[in-house]
């Protein structure tokens, strides 16, 4: 009933190739977080602006990003935009899709963090003669970043794992793509994907750990 022979050597020989793929994975995740963060800040400001068009745009973005499958978001970036003559490479489409998703979640995270800071903090800052911009910059923002930081770390881990969806749009240079190609040549599915899973796990754990250490240094109060 169980007569499968493991061929770990084959997988281990491919390890350097897979690690190269892991670097691409990490690169996409980091880039998508950077773009996502920038967009999330803009979306947060849009929602605070009181402008109905900007606010509506931001709310629509957040709603779609958070309530539809990430796979569809990446599909849309590659095949959906393709229908309109906008052709993104698998790499770019994956990056755009994940950044879109990141921005939605991070914007919601920022909004929650902002709400968590009592108005009295701004009031106290203003009563000392600070302008509203100074009160935001020196009093609200630093506290907001602390509250938003750990949830943003979770999003970073989620972004790393989401990169594996790239195989569906023909991405073949990241960890999932490389693994999929090795699998197609050897049919050693279990060994290759188990090894890839371990690499994903190690990257995700390393990011979480690094974020904790960073937070412990940064937010000492």
């Amino acid at each position: 009933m169980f007569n499968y022979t493991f061929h770990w050597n084959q997988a281990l020989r491919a390890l350097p190739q897979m690690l190269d793929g892991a670097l691409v994975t990490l690169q996409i995740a980091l880039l998508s977080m950077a773009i996502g963060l920038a967009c999330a800040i803009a979306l947060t400001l849009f929602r605070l602006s009181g402008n109905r068009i900007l606010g509506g745009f931001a709310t629509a973005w957040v709603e779609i990003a958070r309530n539809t499958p990430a796979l569809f978001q990446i599909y849309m970036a590659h095949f959906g935009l393709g229908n309109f003559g906008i052709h993104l490479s698998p790499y770019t489409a994956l990056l755009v899709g994940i950044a879109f998703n990141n921005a939605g979640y991070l914007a919601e995270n920022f909004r929650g963090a902002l709400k968590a800071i009592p108005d009295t903090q701004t009031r106290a800052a203003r009563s000392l003669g600070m302008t509203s911009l100074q009160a935001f910059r020196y009093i609200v923002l630093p506290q907001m970043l602390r509250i938003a930081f750990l949830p943003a770390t979770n999003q970073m881990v989620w972004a790393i794992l989401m990169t594996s969806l790239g195989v569906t749009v023909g991405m073949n240079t990241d960890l999932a793509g490389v693994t999929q190609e090795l699998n197609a040549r050897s049919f050693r599915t279990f060994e290759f994907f188990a090894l890839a899973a371990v690499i994903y796990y190690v990257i995700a754990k390393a990011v979480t750990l690094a974020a904790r250490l960073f937070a412990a240094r940064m937010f000492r109060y």
Partner: protein
Amino acid sequence: MIEIENVRKSFGQLEVLKGINLTVPKGEVLTVIGGSGSGKSTLLTCINGLETIDSGRIVVDGTDVHAKGTDLNKLRRKLGIVFQQFNAFPHLTVLENVTLAPRKVLGLSKAEADAIAVKQLTHVGLGDKLKVYPSRLSGGQQQRMAIARALAMSPDYMLFDEVTSALDPQLVGEVLDTLRLLASEGMTMICVTHEMKFAREVSDRVAFFHKGVMAEIAPPDELFGAPKDPDLRQFLAATH
């Protein structure tokens, strides 16, 4: 000098200040007493422009607080205010809490601001807590830090809004001692308070607010010794 002329203020349907007239000269210690909702705290936040007024005028050293062109940020430098809730900035150390505004608003160097902050914090008895975060302080210590923070801007006037109301009873004394110290040094102060003994002891004048009206104002011996307003008599009977 703070001049308050016929100031009215409503929150929705509720009129909380119904035509207040009051002048506080330099060097005076004025305490304001009265029940909850009598409008006394609102008056303080109107004086430094944190709240708008509906009509009337508040003039601080010749500057009309609520006039259109008034630079409130500049005006607030001379009006220190301390709130019932201490409003410590939790992400900054005690020293940083006090130096932030002098550095960013007055443009002082770090060394200059540090020197002022150390002096003010020592003054309120927190000279040994400079590097500590506010979460490590007791309520009384946080409130004294808030006082030092306001004093570091070298204000000409200090407004105290029920600064002991949120404190445990055993911590009230240390904050009142700080206020006594300031009063003895000649700081112009308006203190909204529920501490009758304190009001009696430090004030030059005491004002009694009732339902948005300043019902009586007099030197403490007179106001507490021979209250004329019937509501004040009732209030004093209830608080003694």
